[in-house]
């Protein structure tokens, strides 16, 4: 049986008017660091804590550093093809990270990935270090101006901005696969990470795509380093 007692030792210094938690700790002789709240107050307290955690908690951690250079999001046209009927199709790479969550969901459906809650996906995209996207832009020949823009690929990386980074969710539309687009996405991520001196770049690859990443310069289990995941036991 799990008893979950949530101690807001960290968030209480910013969001709430709770008394200083270290006071409580001191009352228990410096030994206790968790505390139970009376059950009747727990519900509202949990709600406010939950909303605080969901509210981009990292904004409390990240203080704007004036000397940290911001990389200008790039847009690069990788491929430009002219169709027989005159429409020009451009495949545009972007590191700006503007991804519509529902576009991404449609792309994941095409590839056969399980659906994930859109709010969580939106939060994950917002807090990723870098989100690289590939869009296909079709320009009609009569210069009407209505371009069709479609998301055909994405890759994202999370990082602590200094030492470690992990690449997640590399996805390319099946009808555009096999052209080196996935490779381009990952290479751009690696390039951006290494330019910021982030040396530990890792990812977790399904067995089917291990060779794809080997081709990109990744080594499985280098020097015995393995990846492990948490399995809650109830």
């Amino acid at each position: 049986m799990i008893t979950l007692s949530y101690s807001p030792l960290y968030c209480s210094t910013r969001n709430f008017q709770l008394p200083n938690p270290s006071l409580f700790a001191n009352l228990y002789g410096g030994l206790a660091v968790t505390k139970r709240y009376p059950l009747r107050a727990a519900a509202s307290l949990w709600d406010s804590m939950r909303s605080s955690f969901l509210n981009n908690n990292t904004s409390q951690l990240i203080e704007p550093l004036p000397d940290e250079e911001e990389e200008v999001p790039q847009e690069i046209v990788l491929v430009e093809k002219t169709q027989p009927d005159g429409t020009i199709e451009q495949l545009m790479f972007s590191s700006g990270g503007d991804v519509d969550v529902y576009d991404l969901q449609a792309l994941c459906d095409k590839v056969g990935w399980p659906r994930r809650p859109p709010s969580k996906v939106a939060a994950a995209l917002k807090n990723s270090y870098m989100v690289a996207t590939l869009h296909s832009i079709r320009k009609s020949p009569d210069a009407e101006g209505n371009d069709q823009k479609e998301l055909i690929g994405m890759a994202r990386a999370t990082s602590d901005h200094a030492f470690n980074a992990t690449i997640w969710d590399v996805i390319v539309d099946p009808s555009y696969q096999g052209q080196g687009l996935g490779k381009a996405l990952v290479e751009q991520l690696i390039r951006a990470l290494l330019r910021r001196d982030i040396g530990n770049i890792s990812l977790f690859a399904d067995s089917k795509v291990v060779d794809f990443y080997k081709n990109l310069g990744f080594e499985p289990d280098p020097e015995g380093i393995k990846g492990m995941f948490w399995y809650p036991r109830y």
Partner: protein
Amino acid sequence: MEIVRNITTTTTTTRPLFISTNPSHVKLNQLTHLFTSSHFSTHRFPNLHYSSSGNHRVVEAVNVDKLRIALLHSSVVVSVFCKPSHSSENNNNNDMFSFGRELMERVVPVSESNGELVGFGRAVSDNGLTASIHDIVVLPWLQRMGIGRKIVQRILRVLVARDIYDIGALCSEKERLFFEACGFGDDILGSTAMMYTRAPPALSHYNSQDVKHAGRMLLLVPQSRQDLSSSTTND
């Protein structure tokens, strides 16, 4: 109610611990001292030098600026404090105030201001789907007492409270057993952990922009793709 007590019975005196999830409790100089004392490096493949006495190898010192940035961008930062032991400094003069002094030392609880940093751990997350745990460090002479496990459990608790259940950790052979004991295991989907280790080809000339050092590894920076729209178009 979970009271964090010193779990071991190997030491003669029990020492209270103070676990904090407040990142501002961690002072960088204490943290670098902890890393050095524990022979811990933030690089997965660290450079090892020989110590001045020549009998063992030590890791290079951690880059403090990068460490500060890493702490700022870590979603969870856990630190463990313990009262420094004064056994060597005890002047056993039985004056009038020694009893009072010792009493105060015992009664005043340990906190981040009067304690010594003995353990540390952090997690990096996108605050939505995934998280990964890094840099779990405990002083060598306080290891195998359950402190590391407490750190990991606290990190897990904070992440679960934020609704993040996909929590991973990269670990070397020696750390595998530790994480297994904390409830980690191989990925159920059978994925393989891979790291970028591509080095520039030997005997090639490269300028500093194309390679990066990560500990003792030399990593090749992939070439930037050409922007086709800016290049001269034919037709």
